[in-house]
């Protein structure tokens, strides 16, 4: 059939559906990641399953437990034969079997002793994940992760409730993959090449096909310039102006021999997208906020490429950009002939290249000033950065240990706001902390035994009330039914909730590892009673 037969390797075939989301470079980041899981619980193995399948480099399970009958009941990576054996070993074997590209390891030493004697053990990991830890241990692992600069994801299934918490020092995302990005067309501030393109278009052509295939951007720009010329340089402002503007485009349709207006798709598009004509090009507020970050003003030789590029971006905006970010250079598809569409595309792409070059010059200047090699930031890096300039994001998710140590006014305000709604999932944040206080005193969770449900309600309520006071939100109450329900759960780990959390946590892990897409910040609570959730920054 064809001599230039292309061999698609096995890996590309296997990972095809995900490579379309995070690309080969995202995959490379995954494949070099080392993930550490604390506790081979159902929640833990569900997280790892979703990381082993897409091919992380390696995982290590820390677990000193022996497999119990209840474990086999809710965990897919254990079987009846494994009862009494090392949980770390069995789950590692069965997880490893999912994907031979991944290396699986396990450690049977208790977490406590690793934390006490061998903190360095954790250093090589790209990401730490802990499941089913109560507050006290959580705080300890959190401190170690802060110390070693490792991102940390805490996950907990408790009855029908799910809890997810991300802790990350500073996470900079260039490729955030916005959902429906606005086109960057600059009709309000047309650059010279765009204007000269417009001049080459013959709007009076007698050829019907030609007239019906003028790119709508050219139609919009022509009418906008004419409008501005007759309105003191201002674009359409009022809704009456805007209707009139659209009517002008309507009148620009060709008149057929029978006197009626021709049906021209390009004119339809121009009318539909007329808002692009008065859209004001500007810098998104998130990016202005980044420009004000102290990292931008205080570049040093240890500054990350990200911050050097943000500084260069700000320099570009203040110089060549004349107040705007580099042009992104892409245009939407539109009813047009190939030639004029592709020439228009070219005009935008060339302008974008021009802006990238100017931006790169700023980057090189800063690198030289900092005494860093120019190769620190490649041309491709600079190009990707410019293309994503409006969508850059920085996430800082504060340490869990700080959150647990004392209530800041921000935490109090956030809780106050959410607890206003008695059905908010945020109530479970308070309840999960309350069951941990109960555990610390009683050595068991409320409702651990079938006969303890009713008797534990009142004591748990005491912890809830005390906690609300400590958190500065004593004016709110937690519904009695929710307290009862927590006692009923008795710390059960239901497979379905474990699996929902396994999906969510692994997705966030992929975001953190690939530095693509935007992770949550910093607490997610799932209410499996009603299938609702809240995402809050605590």
């Amino acid at each position: 059939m064809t001599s230039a037969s292309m061999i698609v390797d096995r890996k590309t075939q296997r990972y095809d559906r995900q490579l379309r989301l995070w690309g080969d470079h995202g995959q490379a980041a995954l494949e070099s990641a080392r993930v550490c899981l604390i506790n081979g619980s159902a929640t833990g193995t569900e997280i790892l399953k979703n990381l082993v399948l897409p091919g992380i480099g390696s995982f290590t399970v820390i677990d000193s437990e022996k497999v119990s009958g209840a474990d086999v009941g809710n965990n897919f990576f254990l079987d009846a034969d494994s009862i009494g054996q090392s949980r770390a070993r069995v789950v590692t074997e069965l997880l490893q079997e999912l994907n031979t590209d991944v290396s699986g390891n396990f450690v049977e030493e208790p977490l406590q002793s690793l934390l006490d004697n061998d903190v360095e053990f954790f250093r090589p990991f790209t990401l730490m994940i802990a499941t089913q830890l109560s507050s006290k241990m959580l705080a300890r692992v959190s401190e170690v992760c802060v110390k070693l600069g490792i991102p940390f994801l805490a996950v907990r299934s408790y009855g029908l409730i799910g809890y997810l918490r991300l802790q990350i020092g500073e996470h900079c995302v260039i490729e955030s993959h916005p959902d429906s990005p606005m086109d960057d067309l600059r009709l309000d501030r047309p650059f010279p090449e765009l204007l000269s393109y417009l001049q080459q278009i013959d709007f009076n052509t007698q050829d019907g096909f030609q007239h019906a295939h003028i790119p709508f951007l050219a139609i919009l720009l022509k009418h906008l310039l004419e409008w501005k010329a007759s309105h003191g340089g201002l674009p359409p402002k009022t809704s009456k102006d805007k209707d009139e503007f659209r009517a002008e485009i309507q009148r620009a349709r060709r008149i057929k021999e029978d006197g009626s207006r021709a049906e021209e798709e390009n004119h339809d598009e121009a009318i539909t997208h007329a808002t692009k004509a008065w859209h004001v090009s500007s810098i998104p507020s998130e990016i202005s906020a980044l420009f004000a970050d102290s990292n931008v003003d205080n570049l040093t030789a240890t500054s990350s490429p990200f911050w050097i590029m943000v500084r260069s971006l700000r320099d570009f905006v203040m110089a060549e950009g004349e107040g705007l970010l580099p042009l992104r250079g892409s245009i939407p598809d539109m009813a047009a002939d190939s030639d004029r569409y592709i020439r228009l595309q070219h005009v935008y792409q060339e302008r974008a290249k021009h802006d990238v070059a100017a931006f790169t010059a700023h980057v090189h200047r800063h690198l030289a000033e900092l005494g860093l090699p120019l190769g620190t930031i490649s041309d491709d890096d600079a190009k990707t950065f410019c293309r994503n300039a409006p969508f850059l994001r920085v996430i800082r998710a504060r340490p869990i240990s700080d959150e647990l140590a004392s209530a800041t006014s921000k935490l109090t305000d956030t809780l106050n706001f959410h607890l206003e709604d008695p059905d908010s999932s945020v109530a479970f944040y308070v309840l999960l902390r309350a069951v941990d206080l109960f555990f610390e005193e009683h050595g068991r969770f409320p409702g651990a035994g079938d006969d303890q449900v009713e008797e534990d309600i009142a004591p748990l309520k005491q912890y809830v009330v005390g906690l609300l006071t400590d958190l500065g939100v004593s004016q709110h109450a937690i519904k009695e039914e929710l307290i009862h329900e927590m006692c009923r759960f008795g710390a059960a780990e239901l497979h379905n909730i474990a699996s929902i959390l396994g999906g969510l946590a692994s997705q966030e892990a992929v975001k953190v590892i690939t530095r693509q897409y935007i992770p949550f910040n910093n607490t997610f609570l799932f209410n499996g009673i009603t299938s609702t959730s809240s995402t809050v920054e605590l």
Partner: protein
Amino acid sequence: MDASTETAAQSGALDATAPSPAVAGSNNARPASNAIVSNTNTAAAAVAAAAVEDDDTEGEGEDVAPRFEDWAGRWDHIDKLLVRRGPFAQPTFEPCVELRDFLLEQCRILVIGAGGLGCELLKDLALSGFRNIDVIDMDTIDISNLNRQFLFRQKDVGQSKALVAAEFVNRRVAGCKVTPHFCKIQDKPEDFYRQFQLVVCGLDSIPARRWINALLVSLVQYNDDKEIVPGTMIPMIDGGTEGNCVLRFLQFSVRLFVGLSFTALFCVAGLLYQGFKGQARVILPGMSSCFECSIDTFPPQTTFPLCTIASTPRIPAHCIEYAKIVLWPQAFPDRALDTDDPEHINWLYLEALKRANEYGIQGVTYRLTQGVVKNIIPAVASTNAVIAAACASEAFKLATGCSSQLNNYMQFNGQDSLYTFTFEYEQKPDCLVCSNIPLDFACSASEPLRALVERLSEQPFQFKAPGIRGLGKTFYMSAPPSLELSTRPNLDRTLAELGLQDGAFLQVADVAVPLPVQLKLQFRP
């Protein structure tokens, strides 16, 4: 908690009663493709047979498997919900160990699809205590499934998804009896579906979900007081990972940080086909909105006009479509394009690249070619896990009544941070499937039947091969060819010429729906 969900939970328990004797008959009537199935699993048939006491035991020759003995502590986790009373349980909920026995021994659940969602669903349901699970899927395993369909390995490529998945779960989860069906859902008779107390869908195909939804709605029977006959309503839990857009205006309360609370109108519109989105919903046929009620939230597949592809290509996809639609049939008139054959895709890629170069179009790659030709939707393990487990959790709650339910639609978006949005999707008053009233169809006496057929191919119908009957006559049949030929002349006749008047009823049948749809003609003045 509203009345509808209470009844649903109730009927979940009520449906534990014996299936009708028709079940045994339908087993015998199963298509030949299921021969493999019945011997892998005599136990599931045994449950039905044991329940139907007076039924003869012909055919299957099943030996009733001894009840599986569980090890100590096995169900400790789910028991906490089953043997303890809870403030959010259904009013009919009676905590007891027997409830677990109902799940383990009697409850029969059908999983449709053994792909990304299906694999997860089987695992989730098996570990939730469901033991009598049937799974139906017509697909075979492809290597690109292995990044998320965790019950399959490299060695399984090419085999039936349903068979391999069932075998894996039965091996891993002791005592679980997953019965595979390697066929299309349309191949199974109505009675097959009647045996189940719950149906969970993990499908990427809209037509298949439409079909099963309409079938389940059609199974609902009403008594003289227009109440649903207990046991005839089979809840359908539907999961999807296509991130459809709910373009309806939704009313919900928005709370600002300053503590103000007000109600606002929001338009929730998601971009299609992103890998980090999905939805889970609970459909109580005849009681809540059905799949068809929201059919227009699933946008039709993008297609390019032929004239664009042929004469004014602008983007890489135009060149790829040209290679597929125009060049391939020219070059290989006798060979059908096999989109799974890398050689075929490569040929299209090279041709598309050639054409793109002619026009100065950039960006044609092998990966893009494959994506456009096969209409590939990105997919990852994580999203499937979230959506499937959300569905399985609803199935567990519905079957046992141990908690409130999702009411009735949860959208998940994990692209930017983590968000779920739960709301009640309302029944569409003129839903084609669940409204029980003929749909008013605007038309005029002077238009030809062809115009009507064309409109049936659009929203909300999307009928591809309709058959139209009315006034005791057949007006048009798309198939078989002989009938098509004999009814074709009617396409150019006007409705008036066909004797159709304002208010006339038409029955339209199509492969998209298991039962014909009633239309009431409304002539425009």
